[in-house]
């Protein structure tokens, strides 16, 4: 059979157990910090920047991008019982979920003027999602969003990114003890948008955090979903779905930092790519520190390359500093669209374009079902099919 891995792809991956090597966070060029001045301007050869086309960041990385007031319009629609506030830089609730880990996130933290805080009081169970619409209006913006879920509260938050913008942002999720938060972040940008963001979750004792990242649009999207645990018994599920078209750069860099005993994490990202110079990057770092006994973690990345000319870099890293764990594993695979599947379906009378739709829908189906918000699932399926239509045409 033909080699199933496209020429332009990497799936390095590593499992490191014990040993004297530096922890994942120490491999980056500067320690995490709120201050942009603590980070040197990246030149592109650093571990955390080596896949990113810096020239397409429109100055978010070197201080030349300046907010122009015409960046993005943020609208929050929240059900009753939810508090929505706009606060200044000195609000004590900002920055609690974690420090910015790269220069662009630090630039966003150093440059935003007003932050938005959405709070769900303790014990409040929302029956409707909180919807946060971030609509780009063509300018440059630095954003800061905090979503705070009180103890034993339950909420679903949908962050919807549309339009055109050059946006650097930090999003913080503070999930209280025993609380449940599902957050869906959709990057449905115009093809010209540039979006770099760090999503930091602090997961409380026995709390559940589910993140679904959906990236379709943009010229360059670079997201850092990160999870740390504030107490034992926490659970994080990180799902992602991306559809990378011709010329697009979509990068998802995850970190789950298990520094607390008896926490669980499950990561599953799936992407489809089509067209010349479509580039998807997936970095999955999972760190199990010596104190994190009883950890159970698994991460998976799958990529489906639909046409020639696309490139995938998929790098899972699992670092284990204690043997007293329940389980830890990772998997990464990148394959071309399977001509044998296409033949099988066509041999049953199904036309080629419909057969491709079936296969790609099937590839994403399991992940889409994890979202658990029917109208969003339908929208995503419709979007996937629209992407495929564009490819077939």
């Amino acid at each position, binding site marked *: 059979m033909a080699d199933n891995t496209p020429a332009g792809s990497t799936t390095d991956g590593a499992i490191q157990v014990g040993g004297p090597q530096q922890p994942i966070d120490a491999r980056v060029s500067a320690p995490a910090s709120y201050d942009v001045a603590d980070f040197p301007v990246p030149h592109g050869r650093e571990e955390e920047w080596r896949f990113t086309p810096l020239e397409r960041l429109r100055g978010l990385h070197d201080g030349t991008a300046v907010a122009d007031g015409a960046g993005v319009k943020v609208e929050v629609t929240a059900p009753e019982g939810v508090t929505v506030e706009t606060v200044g830089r000195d609000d004590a609730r900002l920055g609690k979920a974690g420090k910015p880990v790269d220069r662009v996130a630090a630039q966003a933290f150093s440059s935003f003027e007003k932050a938005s805080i959405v709070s769900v009081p303790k014990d409040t169970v929302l029956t409707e999602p909180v919807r946060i619409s971030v609509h780009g209006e063509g300018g440059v913006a630095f954003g800061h969003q905090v979503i705070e879920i009180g103890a034993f509260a339950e909420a679903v938050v949908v962050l919807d990114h549309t339009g055109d913008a050059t946006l650097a942002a930090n999003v913080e999720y503070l999930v209280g003890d025993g609380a449940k938060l599902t957050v869906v972040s959709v990057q449905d940008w115009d093809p010209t948008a540039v979006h770099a963001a760090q999503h930091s979750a602090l997961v409380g004792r026995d709390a559940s955090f589910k993140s679904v990242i959906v990236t379709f649009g943009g010229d360059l999207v670079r997201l850092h979903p990160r999870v740390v645990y504030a107490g034992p018994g926490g659970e994080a599920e990180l799902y992602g779905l991306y559809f990378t078209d011709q010329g697009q750069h979509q990068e998802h860099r995850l970190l789950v930092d298990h520094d607390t005993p008896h926490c669980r994490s499950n990561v599953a990202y799936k992407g489809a790519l089509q067209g010349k110079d479509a580039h998807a990057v997936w970095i999955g770092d999972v760190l199990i520190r010596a104190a994190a006994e009883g950890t159970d973690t698994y991460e998976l990345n799958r990529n489906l390359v639909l046409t020639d000319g696309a490139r995938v870099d998929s790098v899972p890293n699992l670092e284990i500093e204690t043997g007293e764990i329940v389980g830890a594993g990772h998997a990464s695979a990148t394959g071309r669209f399977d001509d*044998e599947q296409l033949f099988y379906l066509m041999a049953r*009378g199904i036309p080629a374009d419909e057969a491709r739709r*079936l296969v790609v*829908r099937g*590839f*994403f189906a399991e992940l889409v079902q994890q979202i658990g918000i029917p109208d969003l699932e339908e929208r995503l399926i419709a979007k996937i099919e629209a992407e495929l239509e564009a490819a077939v045409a």
Partner: protein
Amino acid sequence: MATLEIHDLHVSVEAENGPREILRGVDLTVKQGETHAIMGPNGSGKSTLAYSLAGHPKYTITGGTVTLDGEDVLEMSVDERARAGVFLAMQYPVEVPGVSVSNFLRTSATAIRGEAPKLRTWVKEVKEAMERLHMDPAFAERNVNEGFSGGEKKRHEILQLELLKPKIAILDETDSGLDVDALRQVSEGVNRVRDTGEVGTLLITHYTRILRYIKPDFVHVFSAGRIVESGGAELADKLENEGYEAYVKGGVTA
């Protein structure tokens, strides 16, 4: 009456050192209602014939013609051939993750019939066809061929045969890898379709075992890419007793 006519068919595959000819002039006519068994040793080109008729892109037609009721089959795309009435039950059916059997069957039936079957009658039709093949109803919710046993895969192929009602059914080693019970149940499915008198069957097999359940009208011996002998059901008995040795030698020196 539907007729598949294969005339002087030559087929090559791309090999490391250039194209390699596998079929070297196949002549065969299959009419609706007839059952032809094609038997031959491994590597004789039986499966190549099956996949070439279905239009697999791996095979290049270098000569000859294939027509179905006078229409040029070789000009048709894979899906057009299926819609024209050619069905290939595969030896190694392909897994399609995330696509359920029920979704697949309905999509396929819609394509073949030219309109979506009415939901109520369709559900009943599928359920009854599955019962006849001794298939668990839960099967419909599984993903196509994913984690299926050998027997389940073949039952699923014959289920499609029953539902899609082709004019010409090509069964590529449907008997391989089946235990006796599964072989009997799968054969019964094939016979139900044959008994309608509306399908011409091309039964490709290495073993004579399946011919105890499915009685062919004609038996053809395949060797070195063509039919080297044709006869009635009695030819299968001769193969059972004597094996393919005589044909293999003949094929190599020919």
